């Protein structure tokens, strides 16, 4: 059953057909939620997104691609979550501290623990939110520019410029560390 047929049947209330779509896109939905910041609450976010997607299925433009449409709902749910986390900043800080035990950096530890990937990941994490999300969508999720624009609710030009700025920043950052 292809996406279009599954959507048609799901619109008619066929939950079996919708299960096909959920199964098909569950993994990418979880990756999207996790990497956009839902972290360990990704499961909740994804379930909620699938429930909402089903209820809003009439708003899906037939003939377009289901995946970015769904991932936009996932991204919006994730943003809602991180916003609500912002209100609980104490909790966020607590979690942050536990998961990121940034001690005073021991050079030897850094040498052992930090390879190029760790540094690059660090640099991605340090990007401004908008640029980081563009990088996450374009490279970590390997979405096209057009898909990224749809998922993040941005114009194509904005995706291009954010990606460009992010790459420039990462190049500077990683390059600088190479010299260090």
């Amino acid at each position, binding site marked *: 059953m292809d996406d279009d047929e599954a959507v048609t049947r799901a619109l008619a209330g066929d*939950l079996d057909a*919708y*299960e096909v779509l*959920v*199964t*098909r896109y*569950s*993994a990418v939905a*979880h*990756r999207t939620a*996790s*990497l956009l910041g839902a*972290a*360990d*609450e*990704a*499961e*909740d976010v*994804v*379930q909620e997104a*699938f*429930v909402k997607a*089903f*209820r*809003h299925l009439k708003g899906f433009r037939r003939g377009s691609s289901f995946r970015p449409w769904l991932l936009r709902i996932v991204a919006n749910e994730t943003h*809602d979550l991180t916003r*609500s986390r912002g209100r*609980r900043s104490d*909790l966020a800080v*607590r979690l*942050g501290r*536990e*998961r*990121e*035990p*940034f*001690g005073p*950096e021991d050079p030897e*530890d*850094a040498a*052992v*623990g*930090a*390879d*190029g*990937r*760790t540094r*690059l*990941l*660090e640099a991605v*994490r340090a990007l401004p939110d908008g640029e980081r999300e563009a990088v*996450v969508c374009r*490279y*970590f*999720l*390997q979405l096209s520019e057009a898909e990224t624009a749809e998922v993040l609710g941005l114009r194509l030009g904005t995706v291009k410029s954010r990606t460009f700025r992010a*790459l420039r920043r990462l*190049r500077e950052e990683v*390059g600088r560390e*190479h010299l260090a």
Partner: protein
Amino acid sequence: MSTSHDDDPIEPDALEARLRALGADLAVPVPPPADVARAVRARLEDGRAQDGRAQDGRAQDDRAQDDRAQDDRTRRPDRRRAVLRPSPRVAAAAVAALMAVLLGATPQGRAAVVSVLHFAGVEIHVGGTGPLPTGVPSPLPGERRVTLEEARRTARFHVAVPSALGEPADVRLADGGRVVTLLWPGVRLDEYDGTLGVVWRKELGEPWPEQVSAVAGWWIPRSHGVSYVPAGGGEPHEERVAGPTLIWQHRLVGLRLEGPDRAEAVRIALSVR
């Protein structure tokens, strides 16, 4: 330190390729898709059952769309109870969420990797420094002593009593009926309205909790820190050190049993009806 890149100027394409490779390396927890599909389906069917019963013309469905899952639980517990989701499946989905939080856990040192296990309303952090001994356990938010009957009337879920233990010596109700604590001499059983939301957070150093297949749960064999995350969000409740604990799920209720050894805990858990 690797020197493989040191001689290369970082070309734009190389950077993009490295980012893609990095993305592929990120271990993002993904539960089995079939379990996600079942859980979503259960919620959709649940919503339909609810809609069928809603004769007052209120836009149940629309309201639900705007609520977060947690609000769903806290405002309309009935909604969750309308469908008895098969707990082993939900448990399987939760267990599959064995996660290495890579974006969060960035090893600057060797000991920095912290893993999180999300299970039956419990979030377990493994590989941290382990619990800091803190003071006397403080009561949960709004905790008060009640009779078993009152707990059953007020709790947002079916309060189960393990037949292996009989009537509890003491019963506490907390956080607006979200948690019921049953106490026997040397035994504490917390029951909570929570399957996927985080109700308790536990901190423990390694080793990992042991999986207990008989009840599709987990046994935490050593003392660990545990803190309570209130229903309305907010700061986790003050951490206390808990002894070895069995956590599992019975229908839509999450349970944590503290006090007995593993064999006894499993025997008690199996007697919950």
